């Protein structure tokens, strides 16, 4: 299991390093054109990156917590939440109990922060506490604990700062280029060679921020999948996280205090837009339905069980980690799934009630000659008898559906 996480981290590090290379290239180009000295540009880029990194490293978590208006709680303020965090701390083998924060917001979300496992915090919204049962909350906390244990918070902070630096540098450079014409080198008559370098440089300035963003999102999503897998392993109960994700996805409330910078820290992307499938390259989180599908397809709770479900769900050849790393994990015999907790069992009746209400409402619509179109994204469209068209657009995912 640990070997596996190391192997996965190595891939993330390679991606992060390529982002660093991009940063250096930009610095080099900036120096070459504006300062007549490529090395100075390189150093400048590193200095900007270094300063931003230091701020993120030492102030990042307190900044994030105060930005989201989180308040710290102790054992007596919410014994259930405290207990669940402690359970997951034990299951993950974390040495120190993380600080627990509650964000007073009816949206359903949670995040973890802290640059290393000995100085970590988890924050959950009050909406999450109210809506989830014990098993579901355990799954979500397990996911956050995995982010702490796998040191994702640090990795994502490094990536985010690098992305920020690249964007800032590229933005300034393009502005300078457009307002002062080309740099000194090319105006000094560098000839054809100079022109080519200029072309490459401009190309780089436009492309680098986009590339960096894609790398950033790739790293982020990889870590999300791994955190899901680890959560299932800790709780031995992937259904808990799956049904929590389902509730979160169904909740229409958006988090008020989140912003673009803090988005990757959350369990699910706080900026879900209705009517757009959030499964493209520019998304920090994997599509929520896919995460649920993978978790539900698991036949055991081990990482290799998750890996198998992941491959099947995505039709992908490469899983969350190299097979050699997962072989060790398979030897752990005691990764069978456990039973739901007593609290979750008594809650079971509620969905049945919803099911019945839905059937009744379907019947009512039919009586009024409305047609019902089921969209693959899970939305039910009611089409009025007055509607004469053949196709209708799903307001949720944007697919065009035939009414007949």
């Amino acid at each position: 299991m640990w070997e596996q996480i190391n192997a996965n981290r190595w891939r993330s590090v390679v991606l992060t390093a390529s982002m660093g290379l991009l940063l250096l290239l930009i610095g080099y180009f900036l120096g070459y054109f504006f300062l007549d000295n490529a090395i100075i540009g390189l150093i400048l880029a590193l200095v900007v990156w270094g300063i931003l990194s230091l701020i993120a490293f030492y102030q990042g978590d307190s900044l994030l917590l105060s930005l989201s208006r989180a308040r710290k709680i102790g054992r007596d303020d919410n014994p259930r939440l405290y207990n669940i965090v402690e359970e997951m701390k034990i299951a993950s083998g974390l040495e120190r109990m993380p600080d627990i924060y509650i964000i007073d917001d009816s949206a359903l979300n949670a995040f973890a922060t802290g640059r290393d496992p000995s100085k970590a915090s988890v924050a959950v919204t009050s909406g999450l506490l109210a809506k989830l049962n014990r098993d579901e909350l355990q799954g979500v906390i397990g996911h956050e604990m995995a982010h702490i244990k796998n040191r994702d918070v640090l990795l994502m902070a490094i990536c985010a700062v690098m992305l920020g630096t690249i964007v800032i540098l590229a933005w300034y450079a393009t502005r300078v280029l457009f307002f002062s014409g080309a740099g000194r080198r090319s105006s000094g008559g560098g000839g054809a060679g100079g022109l080519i370098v200029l072309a490459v440089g401009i190309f780089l300035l436009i492309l680098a921020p986009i590339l960096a963003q894609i790398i950033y999102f790739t790293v982020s999503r990889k870590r999300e999948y791994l955190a899901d897998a680890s959560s299932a392993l800790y709780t031995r109960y992937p259904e808990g996280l799956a049904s929590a994700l389902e509730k979160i996805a169904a909740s229409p409330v958006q988090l008020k205090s989140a912003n673009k910078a803090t988005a990757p820290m959350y369990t699910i992307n706080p900026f879900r837009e209705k009517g757009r499938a959030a499964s493209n390259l520019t998304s920090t989180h994997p599509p929520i339905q896919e995460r649920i599908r993978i978790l539900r397809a698991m036949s055991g709770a081990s990482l290799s069980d998750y890996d198998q479900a992941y491959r099947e769900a995505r039709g992908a050849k490469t899983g969350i980690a190299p097979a050699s790393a997962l072989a060790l994990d398979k030897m752990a015999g005691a990764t069978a799934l456990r039973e739901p907790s007593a609290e979750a069992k008594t809650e079971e009746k509620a969905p049945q009630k919803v099911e019945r209400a839905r059937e009744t409402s379907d019947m009512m619509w039919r009586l009024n000659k409305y047609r019902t179109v089921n969209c693959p994204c899970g939305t039910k469209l009611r089409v009025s008898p007055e509607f004469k068209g053949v196709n209708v657009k799903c307001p949720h995912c944007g697919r065009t559906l035939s009414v007949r």
Partner: protein
Amino acid sequence: MWLAIYIVGGIVVLLFLFFIITYNGLIGLRNQMRNAWAQIDVQLKRRYDLIPNLMETVKGYMKHERETMEAVTKARNLAQSLASAGAAARSKAEDALGGALSKLLAVVENYPDLKANQNFLALQEELASTENKIGFSRQYYNDSVLRMNNKVQMFPSNVVAAMTGFKMGEFFEVTVTEEREAPKVSFT
């Protein structure tokens, strides 16, 4: 001549480094395993401490459950007295305690007043969570044992383990499910 000496010397240094790193890794794993074992102890003790409180709260409400209550107290005292005994005897006593407790919590359904008692609800949460924590610490302990045993058995770390007398860790057996399930309560 010198070249040969350099090569042999280099190999010796590398072997020595490998030995140190592997040995330290093994020590780290063993400490982790022992630490995980201690965690189980912490949680079991917590359960011993919670039970007298529970009895105190329940006493006023449960008039007809003397036997069930006594069984819990007896099982608790037995488990506590075996706290320094071997893993097998201990595991059995703890399971008996878990069984007696769940029997007691199952009859709570018949006492609506008790179910409304804030103090009882808090205790119930603590007990349920302690039960989970015992489970999770066993789970983590077994994971640590697995990792330790892998190192002790697999080449090349097994060479270092054999040289320094490292032994395999012992798994904390997962309890039989029927013992942990809440017993059916029937009233005749």
